[in-house]
């Protein structure tokens, strides 16, 4: 018989406000096996833990039930406290009476009754708990960073700084991501390339960092400390080791009509290209969809002009396999497709552009060499209208947009407006907004400067329609503060399109079994206390893949993420989850049902000798579980027809005892 102690937490008034904690402690004290029951203000506090430890010593407790907040919050805390007194940490159970009781029920009697029932279920479970020993697994001291934008680069640099190897896998031909496309950055107006490209070079030159550009993740297997990843290195048709990045091929290529994705399709590039001057690695890539040689077999000019013989039209994709201890997701974002918002005329007029397109139109390395010209007739726009929240902050009924605030648009629009007024003071700039949101260091000052110093017209209201008329864009909008309809003949309309997670995020999330929210942003393990970890152990989140962020926030999250990764890689051994499946060989009939459902291949079969009747020996085929590979899902326990397979920590008997206690 266990000697169980029950500890009911008040959590200040969080629990005690709606649950009569004294009554709960008293009621649970009557349960069989409970030798001690008390309640305390904050069980998780130092003094709360001391109280618990003293009770364990004094009453020689063998099991502990804590009625407190979610086990996802403080299970580890209480297990540690119990372990310090020599009680196996897996003899501790939590009854969640905060998130599942006090916070959702208002009626005290009802909440108290439910708390008692949940406490009883936990006590019933502890009666059947067995001490478990956590095993150990080795750690591969290398990290994988998926995505080579500013988030991925910063994380990789910080991990490499600590002395660990890092691989960056980037799907496009160069690292740099979205930040490389930006012109200036708010609120300091320093140029994005000037602060980003040195970091790209640092990453390339760091001997601990391997950059796999133009590569994609094929599959990931394993668990924290021991991931195996297959990486597809897409064929560039250029030998990376030979190409010097001189760019002659990109000048001589006769195929000139390929939309330049780096410039948002505002100009064209060749079929063989280097995305931009500071690309890392600076290696040319042949776009097989447009290359005349690849399509017709006739051309080969790039091969002829290449001084180092780097062109190889027969190159094939290669798949490499690498092992990692931790994986960082830094897949970033894309602006949503503005096509769906055709009331703004995006498809009808080239002079309706998105903010990222404007970024390229203003960039010195962009299609217009930094002079702001209308895409249609290459003239200076004199009236520019900015439309905010295109696809952001939409209500549930709007299927085209996103429910969240994209967070960066208010600030980059203020930046655009300011830069335009600075460079072209004869330009009228109108910004139509729902709200201007500028929380952040020096952000509101920046926005006010745009309004007060640069005279940008901020109008609260929404643009209803943009129609092309006689070479002008007729903007129909409402001014909500003046309560009037406005008609503006603009030369250029800029749409602040919402940002969304990269399209690959969803499939990557499935591959990594990392959970995501309804908008395809990766979910963090705890929204406040574990913001850079995924709930899946060994998977970490860096940058916008977790939620909209500006550059300073992305960089700080990237460094935080690196710190967490270093914490894993610095260990020689990791403790495994001891709640794994276990097969009772005497009951196993060797049917293989469990082996078929195991997603990890943790179950194997072997012939074993058993003692039969009359001193005979029987050889039977039985299952055994590799505890280092088993992740403890329990699929096998249900598939097992003979009841031989059971899950430690969540055994059939334990769960049934909980069911009984709840249904009593």
């Amino acid at each position, binding site marked *: 018989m266990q000697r169980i102690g029950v500890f009911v937490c008040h959590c200040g008034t969080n629990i005690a406000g709606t649950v009569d904690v004294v009554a709960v402690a008293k009621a649970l004290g009557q349960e069989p096996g409970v030798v001690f029951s008390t309640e305390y203000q904050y069980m998780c506090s130092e003094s709360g833990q001391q109280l618990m430890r003293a009770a364990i010593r004094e009453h020689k407790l063998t099991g502990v039930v804590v009625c407190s907040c979610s086990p996802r919050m403080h299970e580890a805390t209480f297990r540690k406290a119990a372990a310090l007194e020599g009680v196996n940490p897996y003899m501790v159970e939590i009854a*969640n009476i905060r998130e599942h009781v006090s916070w*959702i029920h208002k009626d005290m009697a009802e909440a108290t009754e439910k708390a008692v029932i949940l406490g009883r*279920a936990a006590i019933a479970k502890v009666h059947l708990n067995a001490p478990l020993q956590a095993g150990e697994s080795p750690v591969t001291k290398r990290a994988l960073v998926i995505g080579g934008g500013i988030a991925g680069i910063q994380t990789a640099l910080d991990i490499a700084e600590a002395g660990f190897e890092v691989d960056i896998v980037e799907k496009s031909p160069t690292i740099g991501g979205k930040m490389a496309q930006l012109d200036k950055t708010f609120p300091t107006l320093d140029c994005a390339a000037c602060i980003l490209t040195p970091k790209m070079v640092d990453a390339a030159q760091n001997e601990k960092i391997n950059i796999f550009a133009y590569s994609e993740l094929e599959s990931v297997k394993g668990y924290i400390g021991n991931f195996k990843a297959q990486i597809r290195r897409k064929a560039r048709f250029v030998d990376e080791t030979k190409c010097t990045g001189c760019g002659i091929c990109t000048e001589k290529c006769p195929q000139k009509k390929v939309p330049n994705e780096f410039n948002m399709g505002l100009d064209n590039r060749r079929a063989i290209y280097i995305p931009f001057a500071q690309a890392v690695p600076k290696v040319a890539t042949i776009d097989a969809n447009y290359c005349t040689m690849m399509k017709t077999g006739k051309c080969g000019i790039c091969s002829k002009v290449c001084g180092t013989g780097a062109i190889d039209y027969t190159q094939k994709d290669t798949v490499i396999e690498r092992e990692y201890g931790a994986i960082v997701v830094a897949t970033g974002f894309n602006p949503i497709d503005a096509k769906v918002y055709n009331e703004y005329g995006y498809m009808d007029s080239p002079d309706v552009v998105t903010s990222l397109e404007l970024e390229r139109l203003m960039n010195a390395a962009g299609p217009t060499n930094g002079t702001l010209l209308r895409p249609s007739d290459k003239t200076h726009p004199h009236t520019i209208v900015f439309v905010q929240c295109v696809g952001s902050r939409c209500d549930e009924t709007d299927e085209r947009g996103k429910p969240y605030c994209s967070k960066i648009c208010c600030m980059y629009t203020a930046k655009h407006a300011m830069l335009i007024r600075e460079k072209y003071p004869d330009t009228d700039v109108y910004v139509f907004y729902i709200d201007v949101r500028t929380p952040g260091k020096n952000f509101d000052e920046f926005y006010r400067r745009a309004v007060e110093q640069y005279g940008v017209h901020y109008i609260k209201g929404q643009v209803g329609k943009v129609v092309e008329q006689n070479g002008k864009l007729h903007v129909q909008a409402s001014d909500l503060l003046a309560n009037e309809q406005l008609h503006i003949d603009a030369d250029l309309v800029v749409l602040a399109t919402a940002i969304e997670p990269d399209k690959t995020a969803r499939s990557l999330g499935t591959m990594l079994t990392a959970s995501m929210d309804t908008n395809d942003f990766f979910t963090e393990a705890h929204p406040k206390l574990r913001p850079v970890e995924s709930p*899946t152990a060994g998977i970490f989140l860096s940058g916008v893949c977790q939620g909209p962020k500006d550059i300073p926030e992305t960089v700080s999250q990237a460094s935080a993420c690196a710190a967490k990764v270093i914490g894993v890689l610095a260990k020689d051994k990791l403790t495994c989850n001891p709640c794994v499946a276990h097969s009772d060989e005497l009951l196993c009939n060797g049917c293989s049902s469990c082996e078929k459902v195991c997603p990890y291949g943790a179950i194997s079969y072997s012939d074993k000798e058993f003692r039969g009747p009359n001193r005979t020996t029987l050889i039977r085929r039985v299952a055994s579980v590799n505890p280092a590979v088993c992740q403890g899902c*329990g*699929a096998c326990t*249900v598939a097992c027809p003979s009841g031989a397979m059971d899950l430690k920590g969540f055994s059939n008997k334990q769960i049934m005892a909980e069911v009984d206690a709840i*249904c009593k």
Partner: protein
Amino acid sequence: MQVNEYKPKIVAFCCNWCSYAGADGAGSARLAYPAEVKIIRVPCSCRVNPMFILRAFQRGADGVIIAGCHPGDCHYTSGNYFTRRRMALLFSMLDYLGIERERTRVEWISAAEGAKFSKTMSEFAATVASLGENKRLEDLRCKQ
């Protein structure tokens, strides 16, 4: 004065990674659902043995709901697909035994869907309450 107001007994099996976290989310956001719903934490929805459900009905439960990660999002890759198949079969068998379909349910609730958790549990509790007490499989010997 309230006299013997009928309160159904509902057991909710929630997977640790999605739905239990979703329930925590409902709690953090103070999204109420009926107190009749009592949650049992399991590592994965596929840990739920049909035995547990039979046991619950035997012990007098009026409804059983299993909540797991959305298909494709299972923390263990494929666990919820097993749940889906197993429960489809089990529920049709229970139906045959006279336990109405509405008393059993499988739902996919992610860690971010606290609102869905609360809404689902409220709806389920209301449905079960409208069906009244379940006596089909109840073993009176288990009654105290």
